[in-house]
């Protein structure tokens, strides 16, 4: 399978609009899938995946690897994931800096680790092993955390940096998560963003959130908020052009609404990352 690089702005492939997407002539640069929805499975979902693979590069964004957890990494999971990644023909795999199971019991949530050196080393060791065994570049996402875990001794940015550098992994920067965490913690979102190791960013995620009572919830069920768009532009000024994903998983609107979000992201990337005129002239001359 030919490896097709990912660039530009993609959207998450969801069964609800898969067929409509295949009929659409609007711009979609790449697709993201949740691999657990396809691993070891056939049927209509697989048929859709194969049809989409013919048209777009597809990357897998895992949610159940339990990278930060205490249990041994599951061989059946990794084997099945490896098969799917080979089928997709990509070069990167993304997951989360979190855990989701303890003692064989799965919580099906992205749970926050304590920000300690021990936890950073623990998750980094496992991440390095996964990266090598899958033979893919590994990007790890900063998660939404609704509680700061006891014993945390490091700022989040330092914890993430330690884990990523030791794992040889890149940062999947979820800008909405930065915003939601900052709001829930009562800190400035821009300062929170700039405290992250942005130089390690290899991909950016954008999503919507809701405010329920006193809490901001990262539910991927709304348009990207204006404040998050601004934060995105600020992030791009540090990271330069990297692949961007629009995540919309709940309360799905018509497909065109999601593609409008992708268009907006593309316009912001173009505006923020456009080379200065002199550089553009040199490129044209060359």
């Amino acid at each position, binding site marked *: 399978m030919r490896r097709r690089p990912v660039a530009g702005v993609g959207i998450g492939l969801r069964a609800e609009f898969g067929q409509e997407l295949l009929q659409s002539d609007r711009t979609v640069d790449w697709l993201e899938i949740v691999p*657990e929805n396809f*691993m*070891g*499975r*056939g*049927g*209509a*979902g*697989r*048929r859709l995946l194969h049809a989409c693979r013919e048209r777009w590069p597809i990357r897998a964004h895992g949610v*159940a*690897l*339990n990278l930060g*957890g*205490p249990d041994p990494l*599951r061989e059946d*999971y990794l084997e099945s994931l490896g098969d799917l990644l080979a089928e997709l023909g990509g070069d990167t795999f993304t997951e989360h800096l979190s*855990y989701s*199971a*303890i*003692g*064989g*019991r*799965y*919580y*099906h*949530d992205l*749970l926050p680790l*304590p920000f*300690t050196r*021990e*936890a950073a080393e*623990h998750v980094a060791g496992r991440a390095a092993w996964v990266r090598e065994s899958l033979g893919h570049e590994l990007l790890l996402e900063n998660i939404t955390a*609704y*509680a*700061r*875990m*006891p*014993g945390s001794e490091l700022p989040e940015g330092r914890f993430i940096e330690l884990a990523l550098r030791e794992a040889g992994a890149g940062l999947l920067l979820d800008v909405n998560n930065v915003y939601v965490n900052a709001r829930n913690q009562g800190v400035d979102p821009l300062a929170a963003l700039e405290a992250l190791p942005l130089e390690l960013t290899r991909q950016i995620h954008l999503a919507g959130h809701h405010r329920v009572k006193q*809490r901001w919830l990262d539910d991927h069920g709304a348009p990207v908020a204006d404040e998050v768009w601004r934060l995105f532009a600020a992030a791009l000024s540090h990271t330069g052009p990297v692949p961007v994903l629009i995540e919309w998983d709940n309360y799905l609107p018509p497909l065109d609404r999601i593609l409008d979000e992708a268009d907006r992201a593309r316009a912001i990337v173009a505006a923020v990352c456009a080379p200065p005129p002199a550089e553009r002239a040199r490129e044209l001359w060359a």
Partner: protein
Amino acid sequence: MTLDRFFEAAALCLDGRPWPAGGARPADQDMDFYVEAAAREGPRLLEELFPLTRRACARWRPGRDLWPELASAFSRAHGSRHWDPNARGSELCAFLRAQWARGAELPPALDDLADYEWRCHLLAVSPAAFDPARERVNPNLSLQAYSPSILEWVPALAPCGAVPFPLLVCLFRVGEGEVRWLRPSPAELGALALARGEIDAGALADNGLTGPALREAAGRLAELGILGAAQ
């Protein structure tokens, strides 16, 4: 607190028990978010996997929806042990039978209905492919015997005429598409058993199923996508 101690404490907390005394702890209100999310996840998932079972629970006794209580009890009893959250669904049928054995008042054939929905799900996502030109029998096939009471919840399975006991239902997937069902006739059952090598033609003839009837039945099963051309 070491990472091992942290995970021990977090496991207790996520199962709804108090964070162990001593040492630092997260604010209860914040941890509640994860505890509540974990408690919500099981019933939400069951509802997606078993919409007919859920509806049967809601309709059986007007004014009393049994589902929330059943789904919560099941989720508490069967924590997820697999990275695929859907895998929990495999245990619902047995759970309902156990509830029944304990004397719980449940809609008739609720266990069969859960089994029917679970098998439909498994067939829908099965990775096996069927090449009718090369294979004798569609691997995405499940033949089950259900109580006729299941017709109360899945009336589409109703046959013409009297309902035999048990009610045989053949579930199968066509290609990579939808899951369908067939109420097989005796000749179709015979043709299927013959194709699967479960019986020989002599035994079928002893039961009055002879060549022409079996060939006709096999042709119909092939048209439906249950048998391949190689049969």
